[in-house]
């Protein structure tokens, strides 16, 4: 089972480091995975060099979606918005360290989709953002 739910996933799911909300924030976006009701919101504070200096996620859902959100949130602190725009599917899979089928991939990528939609200032989070 180690290949599927590595300890890191269960860990970040049970003890997320970056769960919470930021008020005020510069960027905030939220969306669901309609398939399973997973929900993720991400709040960012941006400094004047367009770098993320604080980030939090909130929401609920499966271990994969919540652990990825925590891992992603952790990874973007200090990064510029331009750098974040280049993050993709593979980056998330690398953080999780597992292979995922199409349905679970959606869980894993929900937080990245939300993050990018927020940064691009989109009205809707589209799957195209995380191809």
């Amino acid at each position: 089972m180690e290949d599927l739910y590595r300890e890191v996933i269960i860990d970040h799911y049970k003890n997320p480091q970056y769960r919470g909300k930021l008020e005020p924030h510069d960027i905030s976006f939220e969306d669901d995975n309609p398939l399973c009701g997973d929900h993720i919101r991400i709040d960012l504070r941006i400094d004047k060099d367009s770098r993320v200096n604080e980030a939090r996620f909130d929401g609920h859902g499966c271990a994969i979606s919540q652990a990825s959100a925590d891992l992603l949130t952790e990874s973007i602190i200090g990064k510029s918005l331009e750098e974040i725009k280049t993050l993709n599917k593979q980056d998330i899979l690398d953080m999780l360290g597992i292979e995922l089928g199409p349905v679970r991939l959606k869980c894993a990528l929900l937080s990245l989709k939300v993050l990018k939609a927020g940064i691009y200032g989109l009205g809707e989070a589209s799957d195209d953002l995380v191809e």
Partner: protein
Amino acid sequence: MTALDVKKIRADFPILDRQVHPGVPLVYLDSTATSQKPLVVIEALNSFYRTYNANIHRGIHVLAEEATAMYEDSRVKVARFINAPSARQVIFTRNTTESINLVAYSWARANLKSGDLIILTEMEHHSNLIPWHMLAFEGGVRLEFIPVNETGSLDMQVYQELLKQEPRLVAFTHMSNVLGTINPAAEIIRRAHAAGAITLLDGAQSVPHLSVDVQELDADFLVFSAHKMLGPTGIGALYGKLELLENMPPFLGGGDMIKTVHLRSFLPNSLPHKFEAGTPAISEAIGFGSAVEYLEGLGMTQVEAHEQEMIHYALERLEEIPGVRVYGPPAEHKGAVAAFTLEDIHPHDVAQILDRYGVAVRAGHHCAQPLHEKLGIPATTRASFYIYNMPHEVDQLVAGIYQVKKMFS
């Protein structure tokens, strides 16, 4: 009544020999989503494509005649399976969903006007919600819902109240694909008729698992899908009372559904062809016929009895696991569907870990999001059983659930 010989049945389903991971055999507990197919159905498709594939109805050559005869013969078999008075009351569609849309587009748009009431239930599958949402949005019909009560059954008192508003249509599921509830269809239909409404019975879950007799139930429309009852994908059926079907305008326009066509006008064909536009799902209809024949061979009373045994055992085993909560009525009032939650572990995680043990279940809202909203949960894990399932598979499910608990503890 002889019980099902499940070992023998299993030998008819090639997929059950499959290992889904190295050394891990398949435990298929997802028949509510779609059933597996016996060899005889697979071979029906095979033999169509290898020996008499042709377009139907308009062909004079031998292949076309054989294909037409087999296609129409399947209609007769499906009609007999639900005890329809005549085969031309069975329209082949893609699936339950298209059947409901056909009624919504053709019957409802021709017969309902703004303000007219349609009664649905809180336990409907999206397929029996969205077509009516679209109609409400576009044409102003009103929708009311029979509530689901604590025990997972319909609140018949509220139904009785709603009937006073003179609904035109009562559209409801015969068996819930989440709770497993078997609704009192005959009674619901009887009361609807007394109130002057017609009825649409969603048989997607009942026709595969129970004996459903449209004449006994007095159903006005019955809809179901082949893929959930041992048949191929891509084919379903709409049964309707003759007078209703005769008076409905066509839905899809095209070849075969016409009698004559001129540049600017056409005359629709007679039933059932009026509603079957274009080249139909020929091989699929033939496979459907072969599937119902297989079920008839087993006997639907025997199928029901086996499923009752399975669900009794499954609920008994599941309910002894701390942290498991199964939704829906007790075993004797439901079909072989067990949707459950396990502590606050997300069903996606449950399903994925079960999969590692070969146990195939579904996780999510099962296309019944409003029902899950009512239950106050975003998703459930659902194990469902059919003619090829055995008690030891329940044991494997239970063992898997204990593994999940261990991992998340």
